[in-house]
Structure formats: structure tokens, C-alpha cells
């Protein structure tokens, strides 16, 4: 399968990339890891006339804590997240997520920024970033703009990024002590998109009362879903199995899956309930460990 012909640019700086986006208008597309875009171009679901390859922008690859945030450069590869000592030691929810994306070869190229900017509700990072209350940094001609991830996903393959903007960074407020999170993904086989995925992040006080809960759902709607009712329910509750079960029921009600080759909608709703329970239980375990 051969993509439609296109002109190729490989800018050396972000500002050059942004200028190219403006010069070439709607026909231009950013190439990051390419692990979603290139397959879409091969089946000609995507037919960009101009490809702006940002893979040479090495300064967009980093994972660091700074100014109260965990900052992840937009071009950071999934494999780099998996290998990062900071992620492995302090952010197991992000490790859970990265390690379950596609397969090793894809993770060597696929980027965190691309996973979010693609706007595919089947991608895994969105749910985790919703649970963590992340912010997206979009860089355009007039500088940087911060977009809360809860307002980032507008519909299938559509995000709040405007034409001429590049997703350059993901910022996650460093969770206070007593926090923990986990991502659970049900997939038919390694490398598959999620049948259902659930990310949960909680902050508990010294007595086990939930100060904050974040819950994100993968592939059960036109966008990644923030289970706001389940989150609100848990806040102020002592985290025991009964409260977790009730939160899981609420999260399942917030899912809007369609029936497809991965299963009927009813089954997926049940799986949201079950995975929410498991993710919350593990998040609580990690919060106190």
C-alpha cells in the first residue's frame, strides 16, 4: 500500500516547523512517530500534501520534574517513557500505560505527543492524562498556550489544537504524597487497541479519605471520557470496597461505547465497571505504599 505523493520537509527548529504549517495550510500535516499517521496514509484515509517531519527536533524529547510539574516533551517516545527511571519510580500509572501501547517496535517510534494530538479515543495516554489532570502545551506563531486536557478532545480525531500549533509538552501537576494511580487495559491480543481501558488516580489523606480522584476511560465513546460523576462521588469518601464499587458503577454509566468487532456495547459497559474497580484498588494500594 502506497501513500499519496507529498512534499517532505524536515525542519530543524520548532519555529521553522510552525512557519511551514502556516505556509502550507490545511494540506500540511505534522509527522511525529508516524505510527498512526503512516498507516492512515497507506490506506489513504489521510492524504496530506505536505509532511512536516518534526523528528529532528531533539529538544522536544525529555522527561523531567520542574516547577511543580512532571514535564514530558511532545516527541518523547513510548520506549523512552518505559526506560525512564523517573517514570519507573514515581509514575507507575504512566509506565502501565506506555508499556501497553501497541508493541515494542511501534513504541520505539511512537510519541506521547502524537498519541494525544491524534485525537483517537482508542489511544491510551488520553485516559491517563485525564486521570492525572494534565495540561497540554501548544506552541504556535504567537507563543505557547496551555490547554487543560479535560478540554482537549473535541471529537474523533479532533482536538483543541489549532492549525499552525504543535503539541510541544505535556505537564502533569506532581501528585502530593498519598497519591497513586494505575491503568488497566483489556485487549484481545498484544498490540491491539483497547476493548476498554481505565485510568484511575487518587490522593488519600492519612486516614484513607479520598482528597482527589481522577478517572479516564479509553475507547468507550467518540472521545476519551473523564468520568466526572465517579470522581465527584469518591471525593471525601473513605476508600473501601463498597465506595469503589459504587464509583465503578457510576463510571460505567458515563461510558458510551458502541458495539463493534471488539464486543457488544453492553459487555464493554460491564468491563468499564470491572476495570474501574481494579484500577481504583491498585491506585489505593500504590497511594499508601
Amino acid at each position: 500500500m502506497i501513500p499519496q505523493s507529498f512534499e517532505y520537509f524536515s525542519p530543524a527548529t520548532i519555529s521553522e516547523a510552525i512557519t511551514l504549517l502556516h505556509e502550507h495550510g490545511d494540506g500540511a500535516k505534522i509527522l511525529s512517530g508516524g505510527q498512526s499517521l503512516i498507516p492512515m496514509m497507506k490506506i489513504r484515509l489521510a492524504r496530506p500534501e505536505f509532511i512536516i517531519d518534526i523528528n529532528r527536533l531533539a529538544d522536544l524529547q525529555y522527561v523531567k520534574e520542574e516547577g511543580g510539574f512532571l514535564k514530558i516533551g511532545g516527541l518523547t517516545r513510548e520506549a523512552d517513557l518505559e526506560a525512564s527511571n523517573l517514570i519507573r519510580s514515581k509514575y507507575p500509572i504512566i509506565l502501565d500505560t506506555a508499556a501497553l501501547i501497541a508493541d515494542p517496535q511501534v513504541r520505539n517510534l511512537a510519541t506521547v505527543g502524537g498519541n494525544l494530538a491524534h485525537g483517537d479515543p482508542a489511544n491510551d495516554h488520553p485516559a491517563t492524562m485525564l486521570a492525572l489532570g494534565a495540561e497540554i502545551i501548544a506552541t504556535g506563531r504567537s507563543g505557547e498556550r496551555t490547554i487543560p486536557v479535560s478540554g482537549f478532545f473535541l471529537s474523533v480525531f479532533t482536538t483543541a489544537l489549532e492549525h499552525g500549533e504543535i503539541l510541544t509538552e505535556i505537564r502533569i501537576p506532581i501528585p502530593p504524597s498519598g497519591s497513586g494511580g494505575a491503568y488497566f487495559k483489556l485487549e484481545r491480543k498484544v498490540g491491539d487497541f483497547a476493548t476498554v481501558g481505565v485510568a484511575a488516580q487518587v490522593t488519600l489523606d492519612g486516614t484513607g479519605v479520598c482528597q482527589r480522584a481522577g478517572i479516564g476511560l479509553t475507547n468507550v465513546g467518540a472521545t476519551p471520557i473523564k468520568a466526572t460523576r465517579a470522581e465527584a462521588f469518591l471525593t471525601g469518601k473513605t476508600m473501601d470496597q463498597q465506595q469503589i464499587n459504587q464509583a465503578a458503577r457510576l463510571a460505567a454509566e458515563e461510558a458510551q461505547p458502541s458495539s463493534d468487532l471488539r464486543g457488544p456495547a453492553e459487555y464493554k459497559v460491564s468491563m468499564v465497571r470491572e476495570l474501574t474497580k481494579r484500577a481504583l484498588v491498585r491506585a489505593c494500594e500504590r497511594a499508601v505504599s
Partner: protein
Amino acid sequence: MATKKHIRVKVNGRDREAEVEPRLLLVHFIREVLTLTGTHVGCDTTNCGACTVLLDGRPVKSCTVFAVQADGREIRTIEGVANNGKLHPLQEGFKEEHGLQCGFCTPGMIMSACALLEKNPHPSEQEIRWGISGNLCRCTGYQNIVKAVQYAANQMALSEK
């Protein structure tokens, strides 16, 4: 027709250059321009891993990378695995342990396993299975492929001593 790009790559230690159309996939560059046909096109949809090559030492699916993206970088294919006609321990392992039936997935399997053993010379069975999880084999059930990788890991450990 889009503007062609001049690329220089090092393939199996040898400098190569060519004018390529930007849409040319790396796997087609390897097979058709360089005539290195050991790298296979399997599914052509980023699933099967038959087209796996090492790009700067990391396994990637060459059906999902443009040749132009490899400009200035190093590529290793199955043809670059043997050393002066002597089989690589992985190639020996696939032969000794009957790690293939039809053999179509084998080049990709070996490239993934190659990167795995470079990073982790003594992998557990679970780590081997995880390391080749982006490579599909429709014949063997993976049992002997895992044994072949274990064989290679053992041989490589012995030759280090």
C-alpha cells in the same frame, strides 16, 4: 510528482545513497532500491513485524517509516547479522531449535531478538516473549522461537567466558 530527496544511510556497515520519493517506504527502499530482499513485507499494516529492521539499533517496522526519515542514520537488516559467513548465534539457534516452519517471519524475529539480547543478554522466558511480542508467527506457536532465542543467549554467554 513530489520533489525527490537525496538520502545517505549506512546499511549493514556500508554507506549507501539514493534519490527517493518522500512517500517511498523504508521497506521498499531496502528491498527494491538496495535489493536486500531478506526483509519481508508481511501484513503491510504495522501488525506482523516481518519487516522489522534496526534503525540506529532499535527495532522498527520498516513498512511504517519513510525511507527519507532514515537519512543520516544506520540500518541493520538480516543480511548484516552473520559475521564473515559465520552464522549469528540467533541464526544458529533458529536452525538448531527448529525455530521456523515457513520462515517468513524469521528475519523480523531475528532482528527483534537481536535488539533484545543486546539490551538484555540474559532474558527470562517472559522477557523473550515480551521482546518478540511485535512479531507474529503463524506456524510455530512460538515455542521453538523462544527456545532459539534462549539457545542464542546461552551461546553468547559461553563465548564471552
